Structure formats: C-alpha cells, structure tokens
C-alpha cells in the first residue's frame, strides 16, 4: 500500500534515474534534499533541516552506502557517488547487509506497554481488575492504573474493557521482526543485529518513520549499463500484475530500458520443480518418516541457518529458481551479467552467495522505466521463445511450490501422495510451528514455507499488494 514512506522512496529513485540519464546526478545530488524541502515551507518532521538530513541518508542508501558505516558527516553525497561511479568498474557490489537503519530517522518509539487511557470510566464491574492474571490493575481516584512492573502484556484487560479504554502501545519494528533481531541500542535508536537478521524485510515495511532503509544497487546497474556491459534482466514470477499489462510487455519494457536480454525466472522455476521433486522422492525412499522443506524463499533459508540449526538437513538442496535462471543466462552467454528483479529483500543476500551480479526491486525497476519514460502498457509483448509453464509462473504464490512438485510427481508416479503443509508467512509463532512439524507431532513430509503471507507478490518491495 502506498504511504508517505513508499512515496518519498519512489520519488527519490525516479529523480536519481532522471538526473543520471541527463548526466547531472553528481551536481544535483546534494541539492535534492533542499529542493524537496525548501525553507519556509512545511516540513514532515520538526523542521526542514531534520527532513533534509534524513533525505540525505535516504539518498545514501539509494547509492548503496550503509548509513551505519558513515564516518564523516560532512562528506557530501556527490563524493559518495563519485567513489561509486568510478571505482571498481565491472566489479559487483551486492551488499553483505541489504538493510540499514537510519538513526536520525528513528523516532525511538517507547517500549511496548499496556496502558489505561482517558476513556476509562472507573466502572463498577471492573472487568480489567478481575481478569488480570497478575493482579496488576488497581482503580485509583476512579481510574484504572496498570502497574508496569507486574504487567505481562497478555492483553486480557484490553479485550475485557467495554469502553476500549486500555490499549497496547507498540514498537512496530520490534513487533514485526520474527526473530528479535531489531532492538533499540544504548542511544534509544533501533539497530539491527545482523547475526540474527534473516532479511525478511518486515521491519522495512513496518516502520512508520521509514527509518529502515534498503541498500540499493540502482546506481550500480545504471552505471554498468552506461559502461555498455551486457546486463540480463531476470524477472521474478511475482511480477505478474505488479505493473499494468502482461508479463511479456514488462519484459519488453526491460529490454527497452537498456537490458541486453530479458527472461522470466519462471523458466528457472521449472528446473527447480524437476530437481526438487526428484530430491523429495529420493529422500522419501531413503527414510519415509522424514520430511523435506522448500529452499526457494531466502528469508526462510536464512531463518533455518541462523535460528533452527536442527532443521538444516531437512532443507531441500535444490537451487532456487533465481539460481537456475542465472545458469540459463550464463550458458547462453558467459560474459553476461545477471540482474534479478523481484519484490524481495532477502534475495539480495542469496544473490551475494550465488553470484548473481545485481538485484533490483520492482520499485527500482519501476523508477528506471519511469525515468526513461517507458510505459509497460505501451510496449509490444516481448517475443519469448516459449512462455514458462503455468505451475512455474505460479511459484511466487503460497502453495505454488507444493502444487508444482505435486503435479510433477504425479506425472511420474501415478497416485503419488504428498502430505504437504504450508507456512504462509513467517512470524514469531513460525519457529514453534516448525518445531512441531519437525518433531513429528504434526505429521508432514513436505513443508512449504514462504516468509511473506500469500507469497512473494506481497513481498516487502512489491508495488501492489
């Protein structure tokens, strides 16, 4: 859904592409914050100067610079850009940590608490007092008061109160993080613990101050195109319905934008299906009591590696559709560079491991198309050698992988039975659920996990959810 955070991020991206193409980016960069927040005009935060400071950090993140790594506050954006544009030509730069927290943008939300508000009427029945399991609520001077030392934030009083007088305040990023990786540091500002972070991107979407930023490779891609490198756009299956028009028209738009070749990642998904099915059958033959879990969602794979070490052996060893797509590109032209285009933050961490050169989000691709005045609906459909099969195009949806594997397996072994379960969106409960599956308490032999509810099209960087 569009809000102030997504709007400003997209607006800045489009401005960057336009300025890059007109050759004025270096001279314009430092002026963008001033242009967008001129003095004597309204500000979004306390004053235009605070707004401008944060716009500078936002532009830094768009240049691919980690806000946490800033050492010289006086260093202008143009200097970061100059380093970026002229150093290591041809070298790729997938950042190790694709997310970055901008301290000055963080509002330092007060810790989550359950509090009684002015709506309290100090009623006679006092359901809050009676329902509190910790006896943490007292009525003082006709108003309920919650003792924060005793309160366990169970929320029973919230549901009990007929006046909706009791509320829970939250820290949205901490609430959204499924693994407790984002916490306030000693300065009261959110910071990500990258040893724990699985790059699911939930905090990136949750923060109402847009303090969590994605480290972009937009400039790297634009610069590589300008150097005349052959960049192949690999468009994720989740692109369906993200832009107006058909997927073939989006491929044509990518080609028009300057990619040397384009392909659907769904073609890679076909290979994933074939391998994953074969792997599954083999595993079941060896040990019918075991279970296998999917490997295409990178946030899920990160979750297993970092937080569920007992499950590592259960994760399918089959490469993801992106990895197979890269193989297809490299087989055709070993010199070509690969650009994965999708709705995912965690794919940036997978791309780094699997030698995919660049990752762009749908937002960043949109910015390139907008900057270069390419309308997807005005493009003639790209002549694909053959469209990917429907089960592969459906990979990005929850149940899509299960469906593809089941279809493939039944075509090989008639009457094949799959005892599949899906975890549709990772949250704090997921780890408990997964452990139940693993212990055999909930029987399953094929466990599909998607970090984003509904699948990739609801990913952190998708345009339409």
């Amino acid at each position, binding site marked *: 859904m569009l809000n102030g955070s997504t709007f400003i991020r997209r607006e800045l991206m*489009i401005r960057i592409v336009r300025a890059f193409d007109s050759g004025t980016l270096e001279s314009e960069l430092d002026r963008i914050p001033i242009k967008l927040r001129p003095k004597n005009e309204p500000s979004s935060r306390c004053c235009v100067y605070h707004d401008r400071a944060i716009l500078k950090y936002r532009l830094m993140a768009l240049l691919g610079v980690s806000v946490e790594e800033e050492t010289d506050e006086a260093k202008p954006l143009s200097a970061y850009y100059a380093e970026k544009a002229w150093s290591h030509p041809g070298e790729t730069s997938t950042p190790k940590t694709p997310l970055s927290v901008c301290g000055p943008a963080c509002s330092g939300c007060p810790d989550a608490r359950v509090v009684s508000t002015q709506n309290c009427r100090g009623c006679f029945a006092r359901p809050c007092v009676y329902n509190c399991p910790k006896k943490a609520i007292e009525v003082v001077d006709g108003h309920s008061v919650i003792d924060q030392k005793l309160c366990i934030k169970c929320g029973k009083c919230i549901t009990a109160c007929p006046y909706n007088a009791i509320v829970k305040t939250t820290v949205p990023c901490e609430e959204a993080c499924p693994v407790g990786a984002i916490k306030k540091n000693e300065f009261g500002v959110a910071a990500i613990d990258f040893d724990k972070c699985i790059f699911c991107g939930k905090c990136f979407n949750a923060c109402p101050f847009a303090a969590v930023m994605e480290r972009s490779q937009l400039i790297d891609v634009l610069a590589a195109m300008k150097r005349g490198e052959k960049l192949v756009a690999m468009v994720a299956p989740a692109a369906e319905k993200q832009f107006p028009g058909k997927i073939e028209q989006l491929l044509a738009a990518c080609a028009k934008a300057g990619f040397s070749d384009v392909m659907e990642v769904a073609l890679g998904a076909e290979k994933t299906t074939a391998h994953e099915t074969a792997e599954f059958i083999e595993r079941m033959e060896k040990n019918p009591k075991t279970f296998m879990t999917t490997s295409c969602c990178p946030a899920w794979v990160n979750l297993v590696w970092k937080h569920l070490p007992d499950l590592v052996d259960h994760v399918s060893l089959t490469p993801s559709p992106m990895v197979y797509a890269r193989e297809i590109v490299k087989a055709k032209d070993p010199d070509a560079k690969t650009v994965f285009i999708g709705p995912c933050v965690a794919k940036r961490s997978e791309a780094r491991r699997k030698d995919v050169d660049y990752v762009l989000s749908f937002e960043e691709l949109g910015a390139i198309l*907008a900057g270069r005045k390419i309308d997807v609906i005005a493009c003639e459909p790209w002549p694909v050698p053959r469209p990917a099969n429907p089960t592969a195009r459906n990979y990005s949806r929850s149940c899509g992988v299960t469906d593809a594997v089941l279809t493939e397996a039944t075509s090989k072994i008639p009457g094949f039975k799959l005892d599949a379960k899906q975890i549709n969106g990772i949250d704090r409960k997921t780890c408990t659920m997964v452990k139940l599956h693993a212990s055999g308490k909930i029987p399953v032999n094929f466990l599909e996990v998607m970090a984003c509810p509904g699948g990739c099209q609801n990913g952190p960087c998708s345009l339409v959810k």
Partner: protein
Amino acid sequence: MDKVKVEICCGTACYLLGAANMMNIEDQLPAEWRGKVEVEAKTCLELCEKENLGGAPYVRINGSEIMAQATPEKLLTRIGELVEGVA
C-alpha cells in the same frame, strides 16, 4: 448532457506514485453516476515533467482541469461535484 471525462495517467511514474490505486475507480462509482462518467487510463501525460514529480499521480478532468496528488477519494469527490453540476 456531456459525460465527465476522467483521464488517469498510467505512465510508470504516476503508476508508482499512486495511480495503481485508481485503476479500479470505475468500480467505485456510485450506481447513479454510472453512464455519466467516462474513465480512461492514459499513457504518460507528461505532467510529472512539466509540472513536478512530487505532484504525481496526475489526473486530467474534462480535457483541461489537472488534479495533482490524486487519490481515489479526491477523485470521487470531484467527479461527484461535476456529476451533480451536469445532472
């Protein structure tokens, strides 16, 4: 009685900056306005460059009136005013 003509810019810039939310505006029209409004999705109207990018998404009404930072709510209100006017 002329129909109210609504042209929604579906250029990629406007699409990214909010036009995606207005694609189904026709379905949101109250029944009594149907037939009195003509909605068209247009390729880039080039207002994001002539006017300013922060004003996207743009909608053009009756060929000349420009609505900047259009939202479904703003657009429906304006359509309402015009429909009532011509009715």
